[in-house]
């Protein structure tokens, strides 16, 4: 299995209410994560890959794979584009 890794030297984060705010240290750009995005962010631990994140979300939130798969893919792509994660 190939896990997704957070590039922890590039950002800092803070939980405010039920949102997670992630800031790129080099640019100061903010990313506010709430709802499913915050849950996915918390799941990225270097072990889980995209499919295992999808499987856990289906179990936790009782949603279909067809529904959740594109959301996860899109969000991970955004994180990748923002330079916050890489594939191990």
């Amino acid at each position: 299995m190939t896990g997704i890794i957070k590039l922890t030297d590039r950002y800092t984060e803070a939980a405010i209410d039920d949102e997670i705010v992630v800031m790129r240290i080099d640019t100061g750009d903010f990313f506010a994560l709430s709802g499913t995005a915050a849950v996915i962010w918390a799941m990225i631990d270097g072990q889980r890959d995209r499919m295992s994140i999808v499987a856990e979300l289906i179990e936790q939130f009782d949603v279909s794979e067809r529904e959740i798969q594109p959301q996860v893919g899109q969000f991970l792509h955004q994180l990748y584009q923002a330079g916050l994660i890489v594939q191990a």
Partner: protein
Amino acid sequence: MKTPAELMIERETRVSLGPVPRCLFGDPLGETTWQMLDDEFLLRGEGDHYFHYRKGFGITIDRGEDADLSEEALWLNGSVYGAVASLNGLVPIHASAVALGGRVFAFTGPAGAGKSTLVAALGDLGLPMFCDDTLVLDLSDPDRIICLPGHKRMKLRPDALELTGAVKQEEVSKTVDKVYALPSAGDVSFALPLACLVFLEEGNSLKVEPISGAERLRRLQDDHQTSQLYGAAQQLDRAGQFSHLSRLARQIDMAVFTRPRDVMRFKDGATVAASYIEKACQEP
């Protein structure tokens, strides 16, 4: 009884007259600019009017021949006080505030947003002023944020004076179109915990809405003037500034107060703000 932070700021803001350096580094300061280096702050006002602070030694004012003394209190109570607070770990916020139920309700916004006018109007509704223009926060207790009582006198534009019922005092200075004013309900002179920070905005409707999450952090970042002083004093890098503002965002309840800038509806706005504060005081 005064808190350790109150005693410290009293001690550190004592003023004496004497010669001061013309710069802390680099070239001599231009008019109305400042420098900060380690535990020192130097500000030059108009002409040869210098204010120098060094931690543990208080503030020294150097009045050159062309110093405008009518501006001295403004510099002293404004940027100089903010720098002294920041160098000693206190956080100045650009806000005016009232107190009710043993807590502080602060209003913030850019210059001209109506912070002082609203606080004066709330005085007319029986809420005493806590501070005008600058709210100083003590973050030494990790579990709560304590506000130090205001060090500035209330300043109002003449038209605001008529709207609010505050009592007119002398003119602020030759260059500022404001007068000092006494708020109708008096003021509070002891430290209190912060209840809420309310951002003032213009809009057609009259409403107070809570804000949460990342929006709190974003709003705090807009307070450039005071953030800059605190960041420079504490030598915060971007991550340190983020961590500092995140703590404030987590611990301070925040709201947006939207109201039209319409003289005819001004009293309605003050009533809405007062109702919000009274309701907040009834909540546990």
